[in-house]
């Protein structure tokens, strides 16, 4: 027993000591490797730069002497980091350099490796290099067992951006368990407006959930050309599709959709009404002011909030509509109106005009202030009654607010 315990204690002590040594050795190795790489990077980065500036016809020529394995890895690092933000011809030159040094071949081979991270890295790098010749292999990887590999392959196809692969990417939206819909949508968005036609062509093949995501993509990269098609989607039986179509119409700026969006403010589903209000604001569709004022009394909070913001964003017509709502019977409508008038700066402007030289303006401002006080939202006015630069204004507001408090007490 005694001997056994000593052995166990020594073994655990040894393991702890080994761990400590491992930590120290790992750090020492990392530090050394980082230093060496940094030294080589300083030598090699200017050569890569010279190649990118066109001073050499090929990267091998720019690098000069036969480069070691470690230098190849440093150059690969430099090229992959540069290619992340590279555009146009610089991107092409970087991709050519990767090909010339044989990296594309290596990445292609990695796509067939057993370990998932090799396949994922291969796909990622082929995408960065926009390697057209890897398309077929990448398309096959969309069925890989590993989710990370599938996503990297989709991402690479998106970067390569060949229109013939787009439908395959769109159809992955039908499998939310295998592909993250947001990530695929991001990939599609990054491909630009070209995807819209293909989305519209394959829309009927998508599941209801996938259609919603596809419409998000259209909202992000669509153009007015897609307006008529999106307007049709406002009649869809699925309320999620209707609300995303409403969002899309606002995002692409389809002015023709104004009347349809006004109709959508009456939709039985509140998310459609809420999004329609937002889209009307995006379109700056002034004829919608009466219906948006009505929407301030909606039973759903988000519809009221969005309608109020829409009215604020519609400019003078909307602000006039909001002012008209100050004495509405609906408390929420009044409060939303006050908040938006504050946010748009109207309240402060009117307070500044309380002692204006013009009789008309003065009267209007005073009546406005009374309305705000009556609405029950007095926060900003209380603030101004203490902190406004003009003594007269402060005194006026303090009196008005005090009178209101006294009246409320009497009522009670």
């Amino acid at each position: 027993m005694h001997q056994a315990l000593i052995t166990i204690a020594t073994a655990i002590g040894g393991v702890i000591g080994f761990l400590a040594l491992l930590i120290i050795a790992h750090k020492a190795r990392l530090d050394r490797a980082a230093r060496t790489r940094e030294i080589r990077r300083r030598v090699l980065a200017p050569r890569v730069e010279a190649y990118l500036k066109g001073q050499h016809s090929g990267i091998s020529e720019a690098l000069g002497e036969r480069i070691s394995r470690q230098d190849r890895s440093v150059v690969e690092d430099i090229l992959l980091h540069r290619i992340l933000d590279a555009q146009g011809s610089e991107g092409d030159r970087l991709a050519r350099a990767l090909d010339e040094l044989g990296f594309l071949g290596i990445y292609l081979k990695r796509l067939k490796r057993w370990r998932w991270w090799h396949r994922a890295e291969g796909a990622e790098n082929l995408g960065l290099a926009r390697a057209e010749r890897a398309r077929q292999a990448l398309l096959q990887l969309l069925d890989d067992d590993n989710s990370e590999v599938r996503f990297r392959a989709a991402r690479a196809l998106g970067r390569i951006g060949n229109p013939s692969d787009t439908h395959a990417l769109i159809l992955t939206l039908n499998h939310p368990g295998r592909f993250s819909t947001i990530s695929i949508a991001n990939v599609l968005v990054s491909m630009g407006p070209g995807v819209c036609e293909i989305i519209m062509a394959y829309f009927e093949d998508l599941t209801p959930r996938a259609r919603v995501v596809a419409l998000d993509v259209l909202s992000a990269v669509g153009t007015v050309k897609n307006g008529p098609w999106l307007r049709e989607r406002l009649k869809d039986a699925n309320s999620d599709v209707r609300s995303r179509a409403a969002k899309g119409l606002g995002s692409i700026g389809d002015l023709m959709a104004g009347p349809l969006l006004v109709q959508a403010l009456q939709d039985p589903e509140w998310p459609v009404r809420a999004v329609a209000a937002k889209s009307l604001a995006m379109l700056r569709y002034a004829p919608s002011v009466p219906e948006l004022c009505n929407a301030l009394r909606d039973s759903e909070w988000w519809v009221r909030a969005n309608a109020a913001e829409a009215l604020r964003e519609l400019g003078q017509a909307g602000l006039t509509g909001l002012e008209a709502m100050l004495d509405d019977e609906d408390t929420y409508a009044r409060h939303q109106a006050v908040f938006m008038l504050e946010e748009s700066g109207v309240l402060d402007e009117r307070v500044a005009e309380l002692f204006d030289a013009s009789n008309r303006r003065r009267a209007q401002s005073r009546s406005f202030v009374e309305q705000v006080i009556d609405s029950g939202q007095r926060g900003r006015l209380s603030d101004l009654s203490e902190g406004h630069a003009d003594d007269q204004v402060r005194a006026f507001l303090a009196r008005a607010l005090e009178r209101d408090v006294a009246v409320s007490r009497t009522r009670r």
Partner: protein
Amino acid sequence: MIEEQWVVDGILAFNNFVIFYFLSLNSIYLMLFILSMGAAIRLTRQKFPSDLPLNLESGLIPPISVIVPARNEELTILEAVRSLLRVDYREFEVIVVNDGSTDETLEVLGREYDLRQVDRIAKRSLDTQAIRRVYGSISHPNLIVVDKEPGGKPDALNAAVNISRYPLICSIDADSIIEQDALLRVVTPFVTHPEETVAAGGIVRIINGCNVKDGSVKKFALPNAALPILQAIEYLRGFLTGRLGWNRLQSLLIISGAFGVYRKETVIRAGGYSGTTDSEDLELVVRMQRMLRKEKKRFRMAFVPDPVCWTEVPTNLGDLARQRSRWHRGLIQTVWRERGMLFNPRYGRVGLCVMPYFFFFEMLGPFIEILGYVAISLSYILGLLNREYLVLFLIVSVFYGIFLSAAALLVEQIWFGRYPNWLDLSKLLVFSVIENLGYRQALSLFKIKAVWDLLWRRRSWGYMTRSRFQPANGNGVPVR
């Protein structure tokens, strides 16, 4: 000497139980360590430099309302808010809730950010104490400050949930600052598994000793004081082996209140933060687990180890005792409230494994540990135990613990490497040994005090002595 044989038998049986307990506890930690290594390897291999820029540019990433409850935080609130306003994220708002501070928290915010009162209307989804005023910032349109009647941290968080506009909420402590890309990183599970993810948490590291300027950590360094270093080791073990391991089992029960992101709709459906326990973050996550498992929903709660939140930890024993006592009170209250989940197959792995672990090892553990230390020491002194037995006890309690602390440090060094300074690494190595020789035992005593507090119905929050973050002019290693 004890002459009654049954007493001797009883003591020896208890001693055997204590050894069995330590062996089981440390073996669970060992299993979590092995799982966490696997998770760390996987996470490191999933990281590509092109991911964050794509998420930053994407209009499809859900916007976030960052909520900061603050009570008497005048010393740290400005740095905290500064760090939040400069994060890389496409669409977000910052909501600071002043929960009836008696110091100048509200005033310092007002001076710095040009606050003015606004009549913002909140959707009252959760009940809270009355809101006195809501302020907007003229210089930062996405900053909102809510001044409310004191109601405690959960109440402040609920008020912020009500006022927030976005589908995700991120709670952050007012004595913490997050790294510039922390939001983009912590939101990753909501992007990779948008249909399922309901909560995600990042790692919390200690800011004591680091140099801070304009709301960001400019230089990493461990402090010179022993207590914060011991906590640094403890945090590494807790996050990098504990949470990463539980995360691998899809059984996370804690998302730190200092830095956690939640789907707002789920939080509201679960009833928001509760003021009935002293650990609102743990209680909320357990309640969400119960609700979602009851509904048989597919869901995911994730721990992401690289978005970093830096937080100030206690620098004296009194503050540490109060903090840990509160955490343990919260744990006991939560386990008691949700006792229906214990050994209940309806709640799957959480009901059958995680809750029992929390009950036996986290909740009752401190009592068994302290009683064990006392019983075994006395037994040895009284001659009831031989030296071999004592050595065996030391092996399973102390040596095994040192091994696990060193193992956590290994995960940190190989996969995360946030302490690149040789001096800091040496400190961590030395203190990973010292931690098991007094510090862990002291923590157990603080936890026992929690039961005493509960029996006497004491529920003080245990506010910590605050100091300003250290300005960026000292030693340390520049941030990567």
